[in-house]
């Protein structure tokens, strides 16, 4: 067998009426050879997942359908194959792993059984033989204590472990094609690094052809042999990984690669403004107490001391669950800290009641991660923006006038005020949220993962905007992110959090150049594509 495991020829998939465009995927052709990792990149909605699902025959019935082209798996056309044949091939010749390890496993079935299911469907092995095989593959994906994991339910495992179960499930019958749809996007960088390593290793050992979907160029740099770039359902560029990453041909590819922030922090001026925000021994413990039910206690922040000057951006980085959002929400007083002091504009807001707090609300504003849920879908953008100022006594006309100025500032047309949030893209909404925060003329702006949900290209613009307004209004910015590349670009100083504790704290350039804490080092170590300088095409 020398030909490609997967060859896609002129694949088109039609979208239902009223979709973004006529075809989700149009005239797509590429192939995957045995033992080769092909990465498909492209911004959100470019048709990556649809392509992958077409191969597996898993397009949602009645909504999407292939309307042209061929998908050849070892020479056999998947488009015309009957359902029963597809079913027989799934799990044996082709397998797939998905983005969300949290939801891709059935929560009410044990992990072992879920892997075993594949064997049960496709082989005649006895129960004992199957169990043996399952344990072997669990061992192979480096799951600790497979015998115990066999009977564990997915929720009892960490995200990385779950993804390993998924991989074990996909590889247990040695398929010739593995499709991975953003398998690491939802994971922490350290876990991501481990999973990437595992995929590469398994693929090498077994000679599997891998179709790897991602939008993270770091990941591409880390594992890809070849790259396929998609835009709006079309393939715009294909080539060897090195070539595409260093010498992108298509303007779209160039733009994408340009947008990837580098891991090298630029030089930034030292800010000497007055201290706008300070926390002293801030603690937050969730749970505990409870009248009828004893709740589990989580110490989400312990003795956090941070300090932000006006005009300065402090980044808080750390893995998921390390307590970043907790600190942010305490400072914004969306939740009440357990103890400690929070000094905003020389008032301690830590233990104020809601009523006392209201006058101080304007000093500190927050921009949230999810641009889709941050704006009330029923209210005009303008109404959302003027709500705050009017609460503080500004006349509606005046507030609206100012809102118009702000629109210009964040790069939107003034008539945007008279539209509803759903009429805007994610990036635009995030700009509106920033404008809303600015309308209050705050001294402190908290951005909790404010760019994490955005495509790289959009992310770049929003980052630029944030940096802009920081300068313009001398804002103290508390920037929360798990993305080191982003942190490197925008933060003056960085605080690294682990398990609710700030483990390292210092100037961005210094920490990136010379991390001292073991955790920080591990974090940097795991950043994908760290050794790769992306092309900078002006």
């Amino acid at each position, binding site marked *: 067998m020398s030909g490609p495991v997967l060859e896609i020829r002129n694949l088109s998939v039609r979208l239902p009426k009223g979709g973004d465009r006529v075809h989700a995927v149009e005239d797509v052709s590429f192939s995957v050879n045995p033992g080769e990792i092909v990465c498909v990149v492209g911004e959100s909605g470019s048709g990556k997942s649809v392509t992958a699902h077409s191969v597996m025959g898993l397009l949602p019935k009645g909504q999407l359908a292939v309307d042209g082209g061929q998908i050849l798996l070892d020479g056999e056309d998947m488009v015309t194959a009957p359902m029963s044949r597809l079913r027989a091939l799934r799990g044996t010749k082709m397998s797939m792993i998905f983005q969300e390890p949290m939801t891709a496993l059935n929560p009410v079935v044990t992990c072992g059984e879920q892997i075993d299911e594949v064997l049960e469907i496709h082989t005649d092995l006895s129960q004992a033989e199957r169990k043996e095989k399952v344990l072997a593959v669990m061992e192979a994906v480096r799951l600790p204590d497979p015998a115990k994991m066999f009977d564990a339910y997915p929720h009892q495992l960490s995200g990385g472990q779950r993804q390993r179960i998924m991989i074990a499930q996909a590889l247990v019958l040695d398929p010739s094609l593995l499709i991975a749809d953003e398998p690491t996007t939802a994971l922490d960088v350290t876990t991501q690094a481990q999973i990437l390593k595992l995929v590469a290793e398994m693929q090498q050992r077994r000679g599997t052809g891998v179709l790897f979907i991602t939008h993270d160029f770091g990941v591409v740099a880390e594992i890809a042999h070849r790259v396929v770039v998609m835009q709006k359902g079309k393939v715009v560029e294909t080539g060897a990984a090195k070539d595409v990453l260093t010498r992108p041909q298509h303007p779209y590819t160039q733009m994408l690669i340009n947008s990837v922030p580098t891991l090298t922090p630029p030089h930034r001026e030292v800010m000497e403004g007055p201290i706008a925000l300070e926390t002293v021994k801030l603690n937050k413990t969730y749970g505990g107490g409870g009248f009828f039910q004893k709740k589990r206690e989580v110490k989400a922040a312990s003795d956090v001391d941070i300090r932000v000057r006006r005009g300065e951006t402090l980044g808080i980085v750390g893995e998921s669950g390390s307590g970043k959002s907790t600190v942010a929400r305490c400072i914004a007083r*969306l939740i009440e800290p357990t103890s400690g002091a929070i000094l905003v504009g020389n008032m301690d807001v830590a233990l104020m009641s809601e009523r006392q707090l209201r006058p101080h609300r304007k000093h500190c504003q927050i921009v949230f991660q999810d641009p*889709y849920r941050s*704006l009330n879908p*029923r209210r005009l953008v303008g109404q959302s923006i003027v709500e705050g100022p009017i609460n*503080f006594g500004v006349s509606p006309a005046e507030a609206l006038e100012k809102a118009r100025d702000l629109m210009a500032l964040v790069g939107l047309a003034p008539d945007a005020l008279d539209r509803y949030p*759903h009429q805007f893209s994610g990036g635009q909404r995030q700009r509106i949220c920033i404008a809303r925060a600015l309308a209050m003329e705050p001294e402190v702006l908290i951005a909790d993962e404010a760019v994490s949900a955005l495509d790289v290209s959009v992310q770049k613009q929003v980052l630029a905007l944030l940096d802009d307004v920081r300068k313009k209004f001398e804002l103290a910015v508390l920037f929360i992110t798990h993305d080191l590349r982003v942190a490197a670009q925008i933060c003056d100083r960085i605080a690294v959090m682990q398990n609710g504790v700030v483990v390292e704290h210092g100037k961005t350039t210094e920490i990136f150049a010379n991390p001292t804490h073991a955790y920080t080092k591990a974090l940097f170590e795991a950043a994908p594509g760290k050794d790769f300088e992306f092309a900078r095409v002006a």
Partner: protein
Amino acid sequence: MVGAIIVLVMVFIGLIAPLIATSDPSGINPAARNRVPMAESSFRTDDGTRKTMVHYMGTDTLGRDVYSRVVYGARVSIFIGVAVSVLSVSIGLFIGLMAGYFRWLDSVIMRIMDGLMAIPAILLAIALVSLSRAGVLTVIVAIVVPEVPRVVRLVRSVVLSVREEPYVEAAVMSGTPTYLLLIRHVLPNTVAPLLVQGTFICASAILVEAILSFLGIGIPPQIPTWGNIMAEGRQLFRVFPHNILFPGIFLALTVLAVNMLGDGLRDTLDPKMEKRG
């Protein structure tokens, strides 16, 4: 859609009942008892002349014209449905908002609601209606009481989830006072589920009224409702089925239509759909 049309037609029938009814719905005519549909009867008017009329749906054991009763019955039955749903939704909305937003109130209110909810609705209604004087108002109160906790739960769950929405938190950050927060940001989110719930309450109220009448403790018969027309006719179900048949068809059709309307509303107002928009 079909649901909405049928509901409108029924409401319309109720509204113009005095115009389309052929006789006084509670005017008895002992001489013309138990006539089959389309039968004719003659009666003496007050001024002594004799008149003949056709009973499209026959007459009942008191010789009352079933057609006129059914037409007038639309009024009361639909009024009860609407009144019950409006009342339980508004009371439930208010309590639910309070419970959902003020944590210290929450546990007290919810314990009371748990208690109310544990009382089987029909039993409560039976007890209430039979003990006080049967009438439209009592029936409405009796059906509203057990419905309220369900609305409260619904509203509360919406509030609890909306409260966590970033846009609500953003409004909190803007210093919006609590009452405005509730009105501006929380209330609108309860509209769609309440509209849906309201239609189902309406449908079930019409049904419960019929059941209460069936058990002999509903609205007094001189006020015709579909329920008590059927209840009065039920003994003669096998001899003169028209007494049950016609109000039954109207009742089932209306309840069906209201339910369909609710289903339709649910599909179009589905929050999932909305988010995508």
